[in-house]
């Protein structure tokens, strides 16, 4: 069965000429660029990446130790594809869409090699309900019917994007496997619940739309100060241990995307296991079902073959586009794009290509751009609206953003969440630097925020950003003279910005309540801090000493309200307490 899916159209045969790590040179075949071939006695899967005279160069997705020159190379005549159909959700794949669960069954606890495993379960029957009928005109991308893929997600079966416009000749309801024919078109095309798509080719859409709806993340610093749009692109660069993975996992958990594709690209095994154990237990705030029901995981950890790591981001984004085409909002996390770039660098250096900056191939910038370009909010071929938001972690060597991967990424993405080791060391999380980060979507999202949260939110955001800027300037002075020598007014400003930092910006991803803050709560916290400022300034004007103002208890109470199940109630208590405290304050 596995063979049938992955080994169709076998054609020419050749032999291995040379093996150098993941790069194998073959002779005597005539495959096209990016075609899949199987190399060696164990038939390891690989992809053609260069053709030189009579030599064909192949990157191999599995370990090549023990492979010898002279062993066979078999062509398949097809490019690297993914299987798209019901059963993707809740799966965990390696970089070339082999289900890790199946690999474990076949290989045991360790990943060995030479095992083929199709991406989808070909034996399982799904209950298909057509939404078109005989005689209906269909286009590429038209939705033919539905399958309840998981308790929370309806899978919409589509005419493959590379089919021709036609009419439905017949279509059946009932239980089918993904290989069984569920209907035919007038031109004879057989319809199935699964189709394949080459990972390196973007799936087509009707048109790209302006990103004007925010992806609500429940993270105060992100929604409040640096929002990303649905269909937008964001990068999180930061040194090791600064919070890239935690941020990405938190976004996967709480942001209001309907589908999450999470790519662990050249990172830690334990982190993937963590997602695997945590997601089935966590409840999605919208549907109440386990988060895993709307998630696809791709795990090609740092010690798994680099060529498959290179492929993993394409596998991931193709799956994301597929759900977008059904009309879903998809968010894709890639952790880390630097490891992907390094995989390209390693392959490129084995090819002895002319290196660009820091040994990366000259096409690095182009590859990054092509990848992020696959994000977007679109009108789909079937006229629905869907989006793919891409959030990429970047791991700059030495934490220095002045390096090719970070720099080339920043040229493309619209949102920059700059992680800061200094903040992380202070356990200020998320350690996103509020002075360096930016979102170029802010203006196009303002309307949405004004309409759905209120103009007040936008005003408070501007006020908070302004205060934080001022703080940075004041800190320079404090470093020289100490804070006690500042004028009272400025001491109050520092107190306010301390609250902004500690109560608004800091957010504990591991606290069951604080990990997700709805917009309403974000607004209230800002409002409270602003109120503190107003009351403080009034008190100053009355002649109350700064010290008295600074010792207001409601400040720390506000911080603690964030952890309360019933935030609104705690908030009311804090606010009336604050009013009271200021009221009784007396002039010196």
């Amino acid at each position, binding site marked *: 069965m596995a063979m049938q899916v992955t080994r169709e159209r076998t054609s020419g045969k050749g032999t291995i*000429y*040379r093996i*150098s*790590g993941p790069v194998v*040179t073959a002779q005597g075949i005539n495959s096209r660029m990016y075609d899949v071939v199987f190399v060696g006695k164990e038939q390891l899967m690989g992809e053609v990446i260069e053709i030189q005279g009579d030599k064909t160069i192949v990157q191999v997705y599995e370990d*090549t*130790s*023990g*492979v*010898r*020159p*002279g062993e066979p190379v078999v062509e398949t005549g097809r490019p690297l594809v993914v299987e798209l159909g019901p059963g993707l959700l809740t799966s965990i794949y390696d970089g070339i869409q082999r289900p*890790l669960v199946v*690999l*474990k069954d076949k290989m*045991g*606890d*360790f*990943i060995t090699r030479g095992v083929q495993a199709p991406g989808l379960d070909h034996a399982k029957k799904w209950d298909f309900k057509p939404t078109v009928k005989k005689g209906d005109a269909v286009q590429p991308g038209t939705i033919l019917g539905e399958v309840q893929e998981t308790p929370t997600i309806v899978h919409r079966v589509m005419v493959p994007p590379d089919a021709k416009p036609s009419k439905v000749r017949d279509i059946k309801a009932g239980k089918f496997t993904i290989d069984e024919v569920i209907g035919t078109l007038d031109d004879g095309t057989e319809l199935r619940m699964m189709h394949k798509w080459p990972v390196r080719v973007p799936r087509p859409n009707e048109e790209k739309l302006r990103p004007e709806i925010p992806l609500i993340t429940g993270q105060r610093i992100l929604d409040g100060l640096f929002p990303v749009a649905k269909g937008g692109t964001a990068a999180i660069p930061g*040194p*090791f*241990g600064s919070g890239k993975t935690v941020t990405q996992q938190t976004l996967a958990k709480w942001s209001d995307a309907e589908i999450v594709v999470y790519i*662990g690209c050249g990172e830690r*095994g*334990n982190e*993937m296991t*963590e997602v*695997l154990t945590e997601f089935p237990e966590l409840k999605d705030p919208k549907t109440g079902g386990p988060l895993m029901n709307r998630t696809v995981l791709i*795990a090609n*950890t*740092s*010690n798994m073959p*680099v060529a498959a790591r290179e492929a993993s981001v394409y596998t991931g984004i193709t799956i994301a586009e597929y759900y977008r085409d059904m009309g879903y909002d998809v968010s894709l996390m890639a952790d880390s794009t630097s490891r992907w770039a*390094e995989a390209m*660098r390693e392959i490129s*250096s084995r090819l002895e290509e002319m*290196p660009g900056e*820091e*040994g990366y191939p000259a096409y690095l910038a182009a590859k990054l751009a092509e990848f992020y370009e696959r994000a977007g909010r679109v009108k789909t071929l079937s006229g629905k609206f869907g989006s793919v938001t891409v959030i990429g972690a970047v*791991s700059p060597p*030495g*934490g*220095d953003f002045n390096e090719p991967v970070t720099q080339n990424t920043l040229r493309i993405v619209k949102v920059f969440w700059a992680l800061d*080791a200094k903040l992380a*060391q*202070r*356990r200020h999380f998320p350690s996103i630097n509020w002075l360096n980060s930016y979102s170029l979507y802010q203006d196009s999202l303002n309307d949405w925020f004004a309409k759905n949260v209120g103009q007040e939110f936008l005003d408070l955001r501007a006020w908070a950003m302004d205060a934080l800027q001022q703080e940075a300037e004041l800190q320079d002075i404090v470093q*020289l003279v*100490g*804070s*006690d*020598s500042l004028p009272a007014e400025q001491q109050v400003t520092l107190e306010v910005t301390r609250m902004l930092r*500690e109560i608004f910006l800091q957010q504990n991803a*591991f606290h069951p309540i604080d990990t997700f803050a709805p917009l309403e709560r974000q607004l209230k916290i800002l409002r409270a801090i602003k109120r503190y400022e107003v009351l403080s300034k009034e008190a100053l004007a009355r002649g109350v000493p700064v010290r008295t103002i600074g*010792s207001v*208890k409601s400040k*720390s109470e506000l*911080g*603690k309200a964030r*952890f309360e199940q019933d935030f609104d109630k705690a908030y009311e208590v804090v606010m009336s307490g604050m009013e009271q405290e200021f009221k009784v304050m007396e002039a010196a």
Partner: protein
Amino acid sequence: MAREYKTISEIAGPLVFVQQTEPVAYGELVTIRLSDGSTKRGQVLDSSKDLVAVQVFEGTSGINRDASVKFLGETLKLGVSKDMLGRILSGAGDPIDGGPEIVPEARLDIIGAAINPYARDNPSEFIQTGISTIDGMNTLVRGQKLPIFSGSGLPHNEIALQVARQAKVRGSGEEFAVVFAAMGITNEEAQFFMRDFERTGALQRAVLFLNLADDPAIERLITPRLALTAAEYLAYEHDYHVLVILTDLTNYCEALRQIGAAREEVPGRRGYPGYMYTDLAMLYERAGKIKGRKGSITQFPILTMPGDDITHPIPDLSGYITEGQIVVSRELHRKGVYPPVNVLPSLSRLMNAGIGVKKDHHGNLRTLTREDHKAVSDQAYAGYAEGRDLRGLVAIVGKEALSERDRKFLEFADMFEDKVVRQGRDEDRSIEQTLDLLWDLLGHLPEEALTRLDRKYIEKYHPKYKAKAAHAPAAVAATR
């Protein structure tokens, strides 16, 4: 049948190139017989119909065109056995303690396959090392890889040994087996480890692989792989909880760089190969736990940061792979603080999973350390960071210019180093002692500055209330 060739065409650095061979496997093991009869071992790095590149572990000195090269038809394997415990082996895996040959129970490929992430088990068992800066602030758990980032001349070996001596999972009664791999450390350092293992009886449950400073540099590339292969065998076939100490990864990386240079590869940052991240990952990722297997592998690698620079590629790439790091500070060492761990740049990413009181799958509460652990550690971090920042300011404006609040933080940082960080080389603190110590110090900070601590913890553990609670009825203590 092994094939032998006298067709060496080129020798460059640690590499030998051989022509006109039968098809040779990538990664195949090689022996080279020199004209004087001695032999060296190597491994195939690149294999084509015309030319084979061999990396020679013992270095190429003495090899000339007359040497004959034999391809052994298999990749590098280690014969493993439970009897390895108590033994001292060379960096190439041969006994050097005068004991008998090891009769292998199995022969395992030393590269080590990747654990399927789906087969992994989440590391969550708290290992008490008895060192406050680790247990309290950067907790180690079973199956973690937590390196020491140190500098030359700093007491990282002492710390590693103290951890090896004191590490235990409380209530389990199980002892760790130790697999120790030395890469390019001095004989004196190796002696230091061996003496300590002998003194404490740890040697009986340890396997030592020693590649010392005067041993062949390229051999260092296989030493940690041999050690990890032995560790996997002990953990997964014999149910041991294995603590692997690798030292010094910096020497390992230098050997890697040497191979890269000899192959005239395009170097990555500061001359290290572009694939060093992946290469290191193939070592570090061999730590872990597997569902359904009893044993585990916890790694405690040591590396010395060239020029104490944490952004140098060796610590940098390591930090991107390991699950945190314990950073040893020259500044604290100069102040005479042992163990001189700077907690600020230190981190344990698996800490959250291993501390506090957690609900298990059945909804039962499991006490891992203590309920207040996370909050106390966060508060201590924030306090220490703030206090240290103020030291800079004091140097400029003097203590007098500080506000009352700031002065308290400054004192907190000093006390933290003196009371929490500093401890004896044989002082084995329980986690409760460590947490109580932290509370004692936090008690000196203004209460409204304790923003990371829940009211309920303050009332239960803060010295001020604790003292009261001890004397007064509970009801009174609760109404602050």
